[in-house]
């Protein structure tokens, strides 16, 4: 059974309320995880029902004007199949391009690399984390909310396993040390709306996380 987003957060996403950085994480999660995709579809169905329920509003425009525009509008082409060795989920592709390798990877500590992703939203930090097989991330808690979506590989955290497409939500109630799978390691997307707070002996290593 996969780890999917909390219902309330999925509602935030489906209704359109969710901030862009968290929406990126959610979109990636939904693109990779069919259970999450189904949850999301149900919330779209609910939106459709709300739309059906609306009382009609008076229209100012002329139907004829719209009809006249239609001739010039070409049908949208079918989405092109994307050729790439490692399949980057569609929502991420718009932000990072065709390859994970092209990003600016920095080593944060032994077996841990990070590449930040620019979203233009200064209140959130977004990036990718590459963790070598069997390596832990430094023990930490969160001042705000942290979303983690597994893109490749897997990690274990507090008895739970997170695999490709899974999403983990963590906040100040969770103090944890995720551990990358000993065979595959892990590549994850993370989104933060506030700094992490390192609580373990490795906290000095991971200072860069703290500068937000």
């Amino acid at each position, binding site marked *: 059974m996969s780890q999917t987003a909390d219902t309330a957060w999925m509602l935030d996403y489906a*209704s359109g309320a969710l901030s862009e950085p968290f929406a990126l994480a959610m979109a990636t999660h939904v693109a990779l995880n069919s259970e999450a995709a189904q949850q999301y579809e149900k919330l779209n169905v609910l939106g459709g029902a709300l739309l*059906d329920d609306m009382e009609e509003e008076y229209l100012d425009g002329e139907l*004829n004007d719209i009809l006249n525009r239609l001739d010039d*509008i070409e049908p949208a082409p079918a989405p092109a199949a994307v050729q790439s060795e490692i399949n980057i989920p569609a929502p991420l592709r718009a932000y990072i391009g065709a390859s994970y390798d092209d990003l600016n990877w920095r080593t944060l500590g032994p077996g841990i690399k990070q590449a930040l992703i620019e979203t233009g939203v200064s209140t959130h930090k977004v990036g990718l984390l590459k963790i070598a097989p069997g390596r832990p991330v430094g023990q930490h808690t969160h001042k705000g909310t942290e979303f983690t979506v597994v893109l490749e590989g897997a990690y274990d955290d507090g008895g739970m396993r997170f695999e490709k497409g899974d999403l983990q939500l963590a906040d100040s109630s969770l103090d944890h040390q995720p551990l990358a799978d000993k065979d595959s390691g892990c590549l994850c997307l993370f989104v933060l709306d506030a700094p992490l707070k390192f609580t373990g002996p490795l906290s000095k290593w991971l200072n860069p996380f703290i500068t937000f």
Partner: protein
Amino acid sequence: MAIASNMVSVQPEAYNPAIASKGSWMGDMTLTMEDAARLVAEIAAKRDKQAFAALYRHFAPKLKAFALKQGLSAGVAEEIAQETMIQLWRKAPTFDVRKASVSTWLFTILRNKRIDYLRREARPDLDHDEWRLQTEAPEQPDSIAERGEDRLRVADMLKALPDEQKQVLHLAYFKELTHAEIAEELDLPLGTVKSRIRLALGRMRMLVKE
């Protein structure tokens, strides 16, 4: 029903939304789910403008009402409603009628257009791509098929919800408040809001085919 190619303006003589019954002011029959799907198929097959006109008369007023309820100005709401219908025209050939109803699809287009509009307002310099973070139904590869009887039950379920659950859904869809913001707005603990959301959606989960 023959639709004259020389369309009359959508401006009736003395229209009062409070009085007019649903659908009647446009001289429109109410579209069933199946009717709507058939009309989209006609657009897909032959770019049928009359089919589009029928869909427009049914849905554009509701799309505008939805956008207005979300707090957009009348001009912007109407523009977004138009652009949503134009998107339907563009995407009709690739829409899978078995996977989602036209209403669900239009809701997702409208939602994406509105997000795009708001983001563009806030940061006009950014290159926005409206499909980027929210797909349109039914683009999920493993979509469950939306069944007619499920949709009717969703509508009934909505009406039957206790007020406090109806309220959180309305704040989510019409005020675009996140669940955390809803908790603040209603001055309630986060846990209470989350449980109301779960209860409201829990009923729907039982109704929609897994």
